[in-house]
């Protein structure tokens, strides 16, 4: 019926961030700059190089991003991107790459409910890592 994807605001670093994620997950990245969009005329020239909308798709993983910032952009910690993998190797690989330049919150560990870990990446976005079994409960 409906499909959910995270939508991330980067207020100026969208191209850099989305390429960082593409380097990790692979897939196709589409980027539309404000200056190439139908809204170009409504924006000052200095905003034309900013990303209006971008979309990374790699299999079931889809991430959308933009530089179109909210007023007073604030990085919170109440919305995480939960990455669920069915192998320990995949979890370790993504955890290692996404933590580069960022901050590990909970090191990847095999807890009683399965693999778990969390981090804040270098763009201030929060990621959570889980083994396949913990998807449902």
């Amino acid at each position, binding site marked *: *019926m409906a499909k959910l994807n995270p939508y991330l605001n980067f207020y100026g670093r969208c191209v850099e961030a989305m390429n960082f994620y593409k380097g990790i997950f692979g897939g196709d990245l589409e980027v539309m700059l404000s200056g190439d969009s139908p*809204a170009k005329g409504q924006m000052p020239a200095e905003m034309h190089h900013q990303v209006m909308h971008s979309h990374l798709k790699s299999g079931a993983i889809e991430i959308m991003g933009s530089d179109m910032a909210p007023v007073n952009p604030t990085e*919170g910690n109440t919305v*995480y991107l939960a990455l669920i993998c069915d192998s320990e190797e995949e979890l370790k690989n993504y955890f290692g790459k996404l933590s580069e330049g960022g901050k590990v919150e909970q090191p990847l560990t095999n807890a009683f409910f399965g693999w778990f870990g969390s981090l804040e990446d270098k763009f201030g976005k929060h990621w959570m890592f889980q083994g396949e079994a913990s998807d449902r409960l």
Partner: protein
Amino acid sequence: MKKLNPYFTFNGNCREAMKFYQKCFGGKLYFQTAGESPASEKMPAEMKKIIVHASLISENFVLMASDMVDDQGLVKGNAVSVSVSFSSERTFRSCYKKLSYDAQQTYPAQHNFYGILFGAVTDRYGNQWLLHFSNDQ
């Protein structure tokens, strides 16, 4: 196969919030409380009600959540949203209306310059949603 799902953290009202989202989006709702965990014996009764993990699941749709807050506490941000793409205009309009209950409509539902039906809401729990529907999906 790897998956990426949005994961919300609440300050004790996870159950209420997830029931609200179930009313908006439909799907099956699963809860795991602290009282059901192996560590529950030493907990005071109040703590046993805390939601360790919740998931709202329907086809293509997994929303996960928790009441578990780490030491730094909850920081409400505005730089991560959840994008929802709908396969019908009817479900788009129905969900937009339901999510708007006691919410801030940050972008009223209307066709944007790409011809896509788009609406944005910061819901009653402070989470940001970007809803869209287009015929060519």
